[in-house]
């Protein structure tokens, strides 16, 4: 047997191709992105058609119980919020069987969102941005509007599609991501509603506010406070589904010019206590119960 005197030079390009992977990434990202968009569109159109036919109890079953990890122990404030939501729901003529469950999150970022199963989550930070029950009611009614219109169900498919692709890119397998996302659907805070859904929820909220308080005073309060305290940096709001707060403010103001100036209802005591030092910025033409009606300049 004769043995070689030297190792052969390995042939390149057989076991590993000399590629940066950039082309492959571009191709994969574009292809899957496109497929994802198509799937998301098909799913949301289908969901839009089917959602009204799905019994609300099914939606509740999918959502499951909301994990209480994020919910602070403020039973009184939560109860007050729940009572307010029930009152608003009654004025919003929700279909029978549809119930709103309000949750209070300890998050300091002002936010509120509706998820599957009629769950509405209000952050503690939001409470600091409202000075009256009317303003709080506007936000709650907006979220109730989403529940009534079945928006969480309608956006579930497209959101799940996006999240699977995103999870695959950032390092978990698509399947485990899908299971995780759908397994915790009740806490799905990433639901993004379309502009149309938002506008419809705003209109619903205004009508509920009028029915409940006889005026839409306070409707713009949260947005104005929010707008004044948090100028949104342009880079952070790419692809927003909500109109800019300022646009929205203008829309609400336009819709509310004819309201009679009435007394704003103060926040329920438990909520006010939790909110602490809310900024006193009542809506234009609205009066706080601590002010005199005659002091209003219009």
């Amino acid at each position: 047997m004769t043995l070689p005197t030297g190792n052969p030079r390995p042939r390149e390009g057989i076991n590993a191709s000399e590629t940066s992977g950039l082309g492959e990434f571009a191709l994969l990202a574009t292809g899957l992105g496109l497929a994802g968009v198509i799937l998301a569109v098909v799913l949301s159109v289908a969901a839009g058609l089917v959602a009204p036919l799905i019994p609300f109890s099914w939606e509740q079953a999918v959502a499951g119980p909301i994990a209480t990890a994020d919910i602070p122990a403020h039973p009184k404030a939560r109860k007050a919020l729940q009572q307010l939501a029930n009152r608003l729901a009654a004025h919003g003529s929700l279909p029978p069987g549809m119930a709103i469950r309000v949750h209070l999150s300890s998050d300091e970022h002002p936010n509120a969102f509706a998820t599957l199963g009629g769950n509405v989550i209000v952050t503690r930070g939001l409470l600091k941005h409202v000075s009256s029950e009317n303003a709080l009611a506007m936000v709650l009614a907006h979220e109730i509007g989403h529940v009534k219109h079945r928006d969480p169900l309608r956006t579930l498919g497209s959101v799940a599609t996006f999240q699977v692709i995103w999870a695959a890119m950032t390092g978990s397998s698509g399947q485990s991501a899908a299971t995780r996302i759908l397994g915790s659907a009740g806490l799905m805070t990433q639901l993004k509603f379309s502009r149309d859904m938002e506008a419809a929820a705003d209109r619903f909220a205004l009508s509920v506010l009028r029915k409940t308080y006889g005026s839409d005073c306070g409707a713009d309060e949260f947005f104005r406070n929010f707008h004044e305290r948090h100028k949104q940096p342009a880079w952070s709001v790419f692809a927003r589904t909500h109109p800019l707060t300022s646009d929205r403010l203008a829309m609400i103001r336009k819709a509310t010019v004819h309201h009679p100036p009435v007394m704003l209802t103060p926040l329920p005591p438990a909520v006010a206590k939790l909110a602490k030092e809310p900024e006193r910025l009542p809506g234009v033409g609205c009066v706080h119960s601590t002010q005199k009606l005659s002091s209003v300049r219009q």
Partner: protein
Amino acid sequence: MTEFVNLTPYVIFIALMIVGFVFGRLAEKRHYKSIRRREDEYRDIVIIPSRQVPRQFHHYDGRMVQGSVVIAVDYFKVAVAGLRNLIGGRIASFESLLDRGRREAVLRVQEEARALDATMVFNLKFETSRISGHGRSKRWSVEVLAYGTALSPRNA
């Protein structure tokens, strides 16, 4: 409500992708350059996968030599592989990683063999294992181990 789409995770993702791509690519190019140079350098230490040592080497000293290397995968490669996982196919970005690992491991075997004044290495074998990150993290490293029997002529 959900007033803004929070862009922070996406910005972080893009930054990691750029860092992963730039440094991963640099490291890979440098590594391949070094691999090719050293392969030429150690060309005379012959690697033979056979288990049977031919008769003419029976009086040689046989000693175990091993070379082991751990290579980290970069963020960019993981992202490409993640997308590839959805539809199947060759994961070229990982193939080059393993190719580098195997060749580097062989080079370390040869380096050790030379230190023993060996002229050849018999019965070369490979082992590959994944060294994964903690928990759910998919920041893998891969270990490639090559080992064999170095044959060095007896001096006496």
